[in-house]
């Protein structure tokens, strides 16, 4: 029986044992059959390895939670930023504005007057007789 475990110990130090075999070896080392002091070294090594593994597993979830929180915060910031930028851009698109020689005018009546005079002058252009007929054909669309 001990030959089996001696062989297992040898394979453990060669890093050839599976997790199941390590568990089996650990059970043996904790039992009365392994009280011999020649098993002290492997007992100490396995104890250290187990402690290190448990500490690593304890750290990992905290790290994952931490990065998820940062990702969530980044998304919230992105949503707020997008909303603010969209509102800002939308508000810049005014309903009624004129730029007259570089000067901005937002008075509705003044802007409307510019619009009316521009349209009037433009529609008065061209060869009226031909224009009348041809535009009638083109633009009487519903």
């Amino acid at each position, binding site marked *: 029986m001990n030959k089996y475990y001696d062989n297992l110990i040898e394979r453990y130090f060669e890093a050839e044992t599976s997790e199941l075999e390590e568990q089996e070896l650990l059970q043996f080392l904790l039992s009365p059959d392994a009280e011999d002091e020649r098993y002290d070294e492997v007992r100490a090594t396995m104890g250290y390895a187990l402690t290190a593994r448990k500490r690593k597993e304890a750290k990992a979830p905290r790290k994952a939670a931490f990065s*998820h929180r940062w*990702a*969530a915060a980044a*998304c919230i910031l*992105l*949503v707020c930023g*997008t909303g603010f*930028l*969209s509102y800002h*851009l*939308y508000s810049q*698109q*005014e*309903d*009624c*504005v*004129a*730029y*007259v*020689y*570089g000067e901005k005018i937002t008075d*509705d009546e003044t*802007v*409307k007057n*510019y*619009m*009316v005079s*521009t*349209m*009037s*002058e*433009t*529609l*008065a*252009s*061209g*060869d009226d007789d031909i*224009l009348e007929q*041809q*535009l*009638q054909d*083109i*633009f*009487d*669309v*519903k």
Partner: protein
Amino acid sequence: MKRILILFILVLGGFVITQSSWAQDTHLQIGKVIQKLTDEDNTVCVTMKGKKVAQYNLTYFKSIAIEHPNAYQIERIEQAIRKDASSITNREERTSGSHIAYGFYCLTPNEKGQNRYVFYTNNSLLGKSGYKVTLIYLEGKATLTELKKHFKK
């Protein structure tokens, strides 16, 4: 993590959609050239939309009038009209040499099914007084008859 990624994609998509819906005329070269020339000191640029132009049966009006335009400004406008030619479904145009004296264009309707028009005139090539070019872009359900009723002197 997957949910966060999906949320990010939704937000980005929403942003793209909202931006494209406000782009109105900027996808046309005409719209871009008007934007470009707005700040120059010999131009009068007018933008009106929504309720402000509803009385004319329009939804959008944008124009630029340039007094004593330089060759660059005229070339930019004429180039823009030529580049948007693929959207023109009908036109009335008179040229003088290689330049457009006046042009009245009907474009393909927008995504809302509204008519789109472009008007362009160059006074000096029409034998009229003053040296001025005017470019107008309209969207709406108005017909020519309605426009003339509202605007022609």
